[in-house]
């Protein structure tokens, strides 16, 4: 007899003991079938599937949203994908039921639950688990009724990848649960928050249980994505052979808090890393945010995390496995190595639900552009002394006030806390990225000491950090170069039907270029043939001078649809930038999108689509598009936003957008009227240069 068969029979002997009251009839039937079909293992399994489903079925309820709160009247009922009934699982005999945020979106305060017996009850939303996309419902049971059937949880140590799993739902019918069968595909998914199954998981059984062959519940099915971006993302995985379930054990652990009405949020530590790829990055704290749990625990920018909750850490991904399952209010024990000597410092941080938006603090210097090196790697050329050479100083900025001049080399920075007795962090400055990370962890108004190398002579200045200005200063120093040597070409790439045009200045090839993506009217530059090409080159030629003066490659995308900018254009743009990166080194701190009219709205959406790599967005004669999501800023995710209007165009109503962006932490400003030139090349290219401010 195979091992699988043995597994199958063993829990069977236990099942009737565990569920005597509920499943006698089903068990007898199944045992009878089991006996009758003993020669056919496949049918033994069939009987076991049915018995396991019958064991849990009394705990599976139907959940429907009935009406919505006043605040949400115009929203969720229409916008939510939970258009139909969904499923819930009993977790407390006295009326506690777990469902998903997919079925009961935020702003919805009550739902209707149909109990397995058929009775409908109004359920109130008792608590929410935002980290796992779950909601706890409470129903009042009629006087004198017996409690609801609470299923047995399958303990973690019983899970085996490859074991049979069943999924149950009640969306199709309140009378009979639907059943699906698969295997346990993986445990410890979604950074430790979920297990995975290949059984059919869809909106029809979200909120239902993932059941083992003994009729015990492993978890609650949920549209949990690998990266928990939003409450309902991940639903696109249905019918894909990938389904997730949040372990019931984990839910039961926080059940008392949810019952007490708490909203459980993901826990935030408040640190930023040097690299964004969690699988290769060493857990070096690039930015330790002022006032964050990490800062309060005594961590500093430049520390390297080596242990979390007793587990050794060598990569950011490992740290994330420890942190992601935690909620705000949970604590994490960290050990960091600090400084040259690798002093080990232990710290305990208590995670929080949110931090105020990050307002990027700056020194007011613009470093000289140097060839990029991979994050975490040692400086490539030992010949070049460490430090950051000041290319130009922001007029009237903190560094200018402290007497920093172009050509100074910043070799060390020391934070000087206001409170007496506090010790501030110190950083031996290796490069601009490290300096930016350190400064990012401080706040505007903080005092810093800079150690400079001024033509071989050390100097020390003290300055007070300012906030990143959104607009460029009036006199950004221009670069040398022949504008006419700039090239204009198509960014050809495979599978791109309408390649973008790019204007590349003829500067030294190793100097990284800034990038300005300018989206004009849809359809521009799309024409075929020599005459259309000539016209497009003529239009692009007007960018040559500004592109050369400020070291910026100007990308002019062409919309796929001549009438409008669309989603597919974002994909094309991302690939165009990849193509450009292969030709010339690009400066990651100076990538900006701009556009006018519909192109401006598209520029914002494209920046959202490409994420934190985009450091600035300029909207000319445009406001934020309706579908814009303005996420609060955090270290590594902020961008300067400027509005402006072209000559002759009506001034848009941007006040509301300015307030919205400012509240979320973005540097935001309105460009002075762009006079004279219908194409604001000079202003935009100097702005891209100014984005490199530290």
């Amino acid at each position: 007899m195979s091992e699988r068969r043995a597994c199958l029979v063993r829990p069977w002997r236990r099942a009737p003991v565990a569920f005597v009251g509920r499943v006698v009839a089903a068990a007898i039937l199944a045992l009878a079938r089991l006996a009758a079909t003993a020669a056919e293992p496949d049918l033994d399994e069939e009987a076991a599937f049915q018995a396991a489903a019958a064991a849990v079925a009394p705990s599976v309820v139907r959940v429907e949203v009935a009406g919505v709160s006043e605040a949400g009247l115009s929203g969720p009922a229409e916008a939510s994908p939970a258009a139909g009934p969904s499923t819930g699982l009993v977790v407390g005999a006295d009326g506690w039921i777990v469902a998903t945020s997919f079925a009961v979106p935020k702003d919805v305060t009550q739902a209707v639950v149909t109990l397995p017996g058929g009775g409908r009850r109004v359920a109130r939303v008792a608590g929410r688990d935002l980290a796992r996309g779950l909601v706890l419902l409470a129903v009042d049971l009629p006087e004198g009724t017996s409690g609801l059937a609470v299923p047995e949880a399958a303990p973690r140590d019983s899970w085996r990848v490859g074991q049979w799993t069943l999924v149950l739902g009640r969306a199709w019918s309140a009378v009979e649960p639907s059943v699906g069968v698969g295997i346990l595909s993986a445990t410890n998914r979604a950074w430790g928050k979920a297990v995975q199954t290949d059984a059919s998981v869809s909106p029809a059984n979200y909120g239902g249980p993932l059941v083992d062959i003994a009729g015990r519940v492993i978890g609650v099915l949920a549209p949990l994505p690998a990266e928990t971006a939003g409450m309902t993302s991940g639903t696109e995985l249905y019918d894909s052979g990938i389904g997730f379930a949040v372990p019931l054990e984990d839910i039961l652990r926080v059940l008392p808090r949810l019952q007490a009405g708490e909203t459980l949020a993901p826990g935030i530590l408040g640190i930023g890393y040097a690299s964004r790829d969690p699988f290769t990055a060493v857990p070096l704290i690039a930015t330790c945010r002022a006032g964050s749990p990490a800062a309060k625990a005594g961590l500093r920018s430049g520390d390297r995390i080596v242990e979390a909750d007793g587990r050794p850490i060598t990569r950011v991904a490992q740290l994330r496995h420890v942190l992601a399952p935690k909620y705000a209010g949970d604590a994490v024990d960290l050990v960091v190595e600090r400084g040259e000597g690798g002093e080990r410092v232990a710290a305990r941080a208590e995670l929080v639900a949110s931090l105020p938006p990050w307002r990027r603090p700056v020194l007011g210097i613009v470093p000289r552009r140097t060839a990029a090196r991979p994050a975490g790697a040692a400086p490539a050329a030992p010949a070049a002394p460490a430090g950051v050479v000041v290319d130009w100083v922001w007029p009237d900025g903190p560094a200018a006030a402290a007497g920093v001049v172009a050509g100074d080399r910043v070799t060390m920075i020391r934070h000087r806390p206001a409170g007496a007795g506090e010790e501030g962090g110190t950083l031996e400055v290796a490069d601009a990225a490290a300096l930016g990370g350190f400064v990012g962890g401080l706040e505007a108004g903080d005092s810093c000491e800079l150690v400079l190398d001024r033509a071989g002579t050390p100097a020390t200045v003290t300055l007070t950090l300012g906030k990143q200005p959104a607009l460029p200063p009036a006199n950004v120093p221009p670069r040398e170069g022949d504008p006419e040597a700039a090239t204009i070409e198509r960014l050809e790439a495979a599978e791109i039907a309408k390649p973008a045009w790019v204007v590349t200045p003829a500067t030294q090839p190793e100097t990284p270029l800034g990038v300005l993506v300018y989206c004009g009217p849809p359809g521009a530059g799309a024409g075929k043939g020599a005459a259309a090409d000539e016209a497009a080159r003529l239009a692009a030629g007007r960018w040559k001078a500004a592109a050369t003066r400020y070291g910026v490659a100007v990308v002019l995308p062409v919309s796929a649809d001549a009438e409008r900018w669309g989603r597919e254009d974002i994909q094309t743009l991302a690939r165009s930038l990849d193509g450009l990166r292969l030709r010339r080194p690009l400066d990651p701190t100076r990538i900006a999108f701009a556009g006018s009219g519909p192109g401006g709205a598209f520029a914002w959406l494209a920046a959202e689509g490409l994420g934190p790599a985009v450091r600035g967005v300029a909207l000319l004669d445009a406001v934020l598009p309706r579908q814009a999501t303005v996420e609060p800023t955090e270290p590594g995710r902020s961008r300067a936003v400027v509005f402006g209007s072209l000559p002759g165009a009506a001034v848009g109503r941007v006040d509301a957008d300015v307030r919205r962006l400012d509240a979320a932490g973005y540097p935001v400003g309105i460009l002075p009227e762009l006079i004279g030139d219908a194409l604001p090349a000079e202003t935009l290219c100097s702005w891209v240069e100014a984005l490199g401010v530290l």
Partner: protein
Amino acid sequence: MTRHHRRRFVAAVLAAGLAAGAARAATPGETIAGAARRVVKLYGAGGVRGLEGYQSGILVSPAGHVVTVQSTVLDSESIDCVLDDGRRFPATVIGVDPRRELAVLSIAGEDLPSFALPGATEVAAGAGESVAGRVAAGTRVLALSNLFAVAVGDERVSAQHGVVSTVVPLEARRGAFEAPYRGEVYLLDYTTSNPGSAGGALVDWRGRLVGMLGKELRATTTGVWLNYALPIDEVALAYREATGKGPPPAPPSDDVAPFDAGVLGVVLVPDLLDRTPPFVESVRDGSAAARSGLRPDDLLVAVNGRSVASRSAVQKTLAAVPDGDPVEFAVIRAGEIVICDLGPKPAARRDP
């Protein structure tokens, strides 16, 4: 169940009971091979704008009757029917059950391998069996079909496996077209909603015919693609109706006009959105609604036990209640479910 069937059923039970372990059970491969001989590949019209020109069918008589789904594939001058052994026959449509969207084709064959439908009067020796009645949720089932037309020539149709997920009434649509059949179907826990699968055979782990695979449809309630099959008893009824051996086919049910709840004296909050929650705006004095105790601001959650999530769902559900039948609303009022009995449903004409 015919006497013949009953005898065989008893024999099967005895065999299972007595021979436990002694009789060698068919391997899954043998089960699939046995059932696949009775499934055919059909090629007809189509191939334009997302409509496939192929589907599946099931042989249900040794003389060459094939059941399949009624579809645009059959709107063709010539329909090709390819058997498991690669033989190719022209097929003609000899009957249709428009409600269940099932068509019967005929090919000029003899002694063809076939399944015996429940209630068949003549059962050939060696005919494949059908299950008696319905199978339960969790039953392991194989789907055999001309999936994506990947099986060419004499290649065997594709086999997929999973379980019956549940048995529910079909509430589905294809684009804006609502499926005419509202009877019960098996939902499956694996993806059969694919081009070419419609008309294929659903068989249990013993190779007995359980149902016929349905079309590519989406659920009206959740919008997910449905993987469903028409249960064998419905297939048998449809076969008899289509071949004139049963009662005349019922015409496809036309969409009934929504019933205005105003006739009962209820005014619902106006439809501002597609899915405006069915809140009661006002109740007309002296109306059936007023007598039932319905009040403004009540939120309807069910009409005669059926969930209603929107104003349009209320009107649709009311329309399905026959005139004169009792109407009962379940509403939420101050966090409690309250049942309101509105009495018999009047004819759908608003009184002056």
